[in-house]
């Protein structure tokens, strides 16, 4: 089972990883795994487990282009992020890193700390009480990039960009 971490709307990248905790500022860049939500939600990094899911309000990831924000989330093994609207740069960065992002508003369906199972293939969430939620299927090009494990393996495999006709 994966734990749900619930966040509000307009979570910005300074809340995900403040600029003061950027790899640029660190002696050892692997420290980054300790810093997601270091100030906004200090209980997150010590308790998050691989496969856990972030459920957030609209405009998740607004602000800076810093790829180390989604990178920090990948380092702790985030399984998926579900929000009704993603900020554009964050969405690209997360896609490039192979983090599945689903566009849906589940902030009223799920509560913080809920235990759920997410099947990425079918986009089906099953809660611990057996309730089933279907996520809208992402466009094909997104699923292709996830399947490859991110944009770099995608590009190396296909020699082209997503959406481009082979």
């Amino acid at each position, binding site marked *: 089972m994966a734990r749900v971490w619930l966040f509000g709307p*307009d979570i*910005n990248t*300074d*809340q995900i990883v*403040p*600029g*003061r905790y*950027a*790899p*640029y*500022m*660190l*002696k050892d860049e692997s420290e980054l795994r300790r810093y997601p939500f270091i*100030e*906004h939600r200090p209980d997150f990094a010590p308790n998050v487990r691989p496969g856990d899911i972030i459920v957030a309000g*609209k*405009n998740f990831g*607004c*602000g*800076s*282009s*810093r*790829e*180390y924000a*989604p990178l920090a989330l990948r380092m702790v093994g985030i399984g998926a992020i579900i929000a009704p*609207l993603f*900020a*554009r*740069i964050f969405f*690209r*960065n997360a896609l*490039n*890193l192979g983090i599945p992002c689903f566009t849906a508003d589940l902030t009223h369906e799920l509560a913080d700390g809920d235990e759920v199972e997410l099947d990425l293939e079918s986009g089906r969430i099953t809660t611990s009480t057996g309730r089933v939620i279907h996520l809208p299927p992402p466009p094909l*090009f997104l699923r292709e990039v996830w399947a490859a494990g*991110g*944009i*770099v393996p995608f*590009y*190396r495999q296909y020699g*082209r*960009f*997503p*959406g*481009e006709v082979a």
Partner: protein
Amino acid sequence: MPTMSEQILSRVAGRPVRAGDVVTANVDLVMVHDSLAPSIIRILHQELGAERVWDPQRVAVVIDHVAPAASVQTAEKQQEVRRWVRAQGIPNLFDVGRGISHPVLVEEGLAQPGMLILGSDSHSTAYGCVGAFGTGMGSTDIALALATGKTWLRVPETIVVRARGTFGFGVGPKDLALRAARLLRADGATYAAIEWHGVEQLSVMERMTLATLSIEMGAKAGIVPPTGLDLSGPLVPTVDADAQYQEVVEIDLSQLEPQVSAPHYVDNVVDLSDLGRVAVDVVYLGTCTNGHYEDMAVAAQILAGRRLAPGVRMIVVPASAQALQRAAADGTLATLLAAGATIGTPGCGACIGRHMGVLAPGEVCLFTGNRNFRGRMGSPEAQIYLASPAVAAATALTGYLTDPRAVMDGQPVESR
């Protein structure tokens, strides 16, 4: 008929494209800054396996995010970036003190009308000030562009912010941009481009205020038609009377009051007159949004012959060396110093909360920059208010958020 984004992206895609199309496009210029350069270099060589950037002439590297270096770590990483630039034969390195990437690339003539410009910085929408399609991307996208000279993107729909009339005294481009953020909100232009119409009276750097703040509404690009600018480029985009827009927002400049973005969201904008008495510890004038020569000149006009309120610190960090030189040459700098302000090395300064004016818990800062997110400039317990350079100068005189019209023309100053 096409929007400016459609005109530019059709050129770089090599075929006519419309909003909603997903295109692979040739990139005209890639900007890399020190903060993300080490990760970009690593991805380029180690993950993508590329040995060289596709065209060193079309790459600009700027050391602005921690300039000068603030620690051994940042100094070492800057050293690594300089070595890499030499090894790659990249002619355009703008090192410590030259300024923030966005004004520097415009001053150097590298950013031109009609270009597609990618930057490793979200405020790369700035290049819209010369009629370019500038957009910010993360390390992996930038590394891919450096390796291939290409990127992929969805052609955005366009939202027009149409200004009418002229600014009143003490009101300017920052107030227009914050007003737009108040109307469109932080996500109102997500996945779209903003076109700023009716602002041909503004200088290039004043237009940059509008272009940089476009990202704070979520925009992919923020383009000002290059009307009235004597600039050449691969394409001079124009406003077409028949272009299809997603939305048009009208703003009457003559009715506009000084706008303030209150903590901790950029779109939390109110008329300054609707705020109560807000005491301020620090006034910070700088950034790619409002650290330009014009911004220092507006502040100097208000501060001339006066002194900062007791207990207020005023930090001015020019956006570029050229802006600083111009301010030094015409007395603007001397006026700011005589009033009690201090000057930092041109660059990003404390905008990212790393050095040169980091805030303590409980401190209140009046900031001419573009983000007031919690913790942005240092302590998450600090408060950041965004406003124009005119409001910044008026506030420095009184020690609390002040309408510039209240202290202009020899009006007596009541400080705290």
